[in-house]
């Protein structure tokens, strides 16, 4: 991933904290619904009508969620370089149907994930995963990775600037050395954080996230996703 994509998280984070109806829903419902839709997309038969329906449904969902449609689609298009290569190769080999399938499936899958991430802040996604049975220790580690990611990336950026200022950026070993220093600072920061935890009376178990409430509206979301999935996939069989 490039540094430019890295700071893109800001827009997602911003969208996800907007007080919209979809943002307020139980993350478990949203995760399950997203997985259902992804599943359906992976089975989608390659027919114009069906593809059109899918795109329309996604656009409608995006708009209803209060997300900026063009920006969301632009984000979904990030997967394009990877899929376009394979689609191109497949098309050249004569299998245009499959090529289109690859493009449509990858783009629409990415779109679904952008909607999910764009309406659910990461800590809520993690709470949802916890509710769905993911191991708590793993999720705590993910939470810490997220918390310190930008702090350390900023440090890396500053070290990069400082190195540039001294013209040493072209040497492999200098770069490895600075990465090692980044490691050292990360390790020391972790020790500092651990001390801060002890200083506030840490007793060995980390606090669990706030409890989630699954409402009728959430159930409706999952059911609708299932409904859409069935429509998209099954109706073809007729």
């Amino acid at each position, binding site marked *: 991933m490039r540094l430019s994509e890295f700071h893109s998280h800001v827009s997602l984070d911003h969208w996800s904290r907007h007080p919209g109806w979809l943002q307020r829903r139980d993350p478990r419902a949203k995760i399950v619904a997203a997985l259902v839709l992804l599943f359906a997309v992976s089975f989608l038969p390659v027919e114009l009508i069906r593809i059109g329906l899918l795109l329309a449904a996604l656009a409608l969902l995006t708009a209803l969620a209060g997300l900026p449609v063009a920006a969301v689609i632009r984000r979904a298009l990030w997967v394009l370089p990877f899929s376009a290569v394979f689609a191109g190769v497949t098309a050249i080999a004569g299998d245009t149907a499959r090529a289109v399938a690859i493009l449509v499936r990858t783009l629409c899958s990415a779109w679904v994930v*952008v909607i999910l991430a764009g309406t659910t802040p990461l800590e809520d996604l993690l709470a949802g995963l916890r509710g769905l049975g993911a191991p708590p220790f793993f999720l705590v580690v993910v939470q810490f990775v997220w918390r310190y990611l930008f702090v350390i990336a900023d440090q890396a950026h500053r070290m990069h600037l400082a190195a540039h200022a001294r013209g040493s950026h072209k040497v*492999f070993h200098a770069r490895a050395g600075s990465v090692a220093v980044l490691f050292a600072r990360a390790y020391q920061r972790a020790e500092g954080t651990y001390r801060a935890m002890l200083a506030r009376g840490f007793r060995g178990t980390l606090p669990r996230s706030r409890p989630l409430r699954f409402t009728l509206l959430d159930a409706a979301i999952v059911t609708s996703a299932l409904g859409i999935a069935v429509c998209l996939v099954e109706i073809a069989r007729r």
Partner: protein
Amino acid sequence: MHIPDGFLATPVWAGLQAVSLPAIAWTARKAQVETEESRAPLLGVLGAFVFAAQMINFPVGVGASGHLVGSALLAYTVGPWAASMVMAAILIIQALVFQDGGLLAFGANTFNMAVLGVWAAYLPYRLWGGGRARRAAILLGGFCSVFAASLAAIGELLLSEVRIPSEAMHIALFVFGVTAVIEGAITLAVLEAVGRINPRWVKAPEPMGRPAFVLLIALAAVAAFAGFWIASTRPDGLEQLLQNAGIQNLERKYLAAPTGIAVVLVLCLFLWRWMSRPRSA
């Protein structure tokens, strides 16, 4: 290589989810038991470090640059179990927030980079990291880590009947080889620098008991032999797969054996790890 959703065939992605998700759960339990909840900040911060380090350019010649993946580096500093978990943590964030890798494909990406990538790095280190061939072991570990993960990814694409013409396959294998070499080089350089700052941050490869060692070599040899034998004498199923990808005869052997070995290697590692559980305090 993060595989997005929409590429893998259902049996492939579903099968790997079924393998990877329980593996993460088990790894999380092991890491938690071995390191206590208080280690979560350390693993998290180091995960943030690897994530950030992945974006750093390493100049490797005229105009070219390499990047660190970090599975090997993590394995050599926090041990393979914690390393697996940290890599998986990085991958889930990449999938959710940066759409780098799919959600259905999360199992496949995790298997490739967090399981295979970590253990393929750890094995050479555990075997030779304690002796005079230490630097070579680290280079090899970094290399195997990326090469095995890349091969597995290609294997998964092939199994999903994604078309990859033979010229492209040549190029891909070459590129994998180069990035794998770079990973080895970066891992070694960074690990040595880290060791100079504080030697305690580098995990010592625990010495292996002789019987376990012999058994492991024997198993690996059997696995490699079996892999070659299957590829050469029972080519039907494999052939059909590879035929779809348009690969010529020769490439088949090149691809089948390493991928087969990689998978069997992982199985060997789990088996050996289970066998070498501490029996006395």
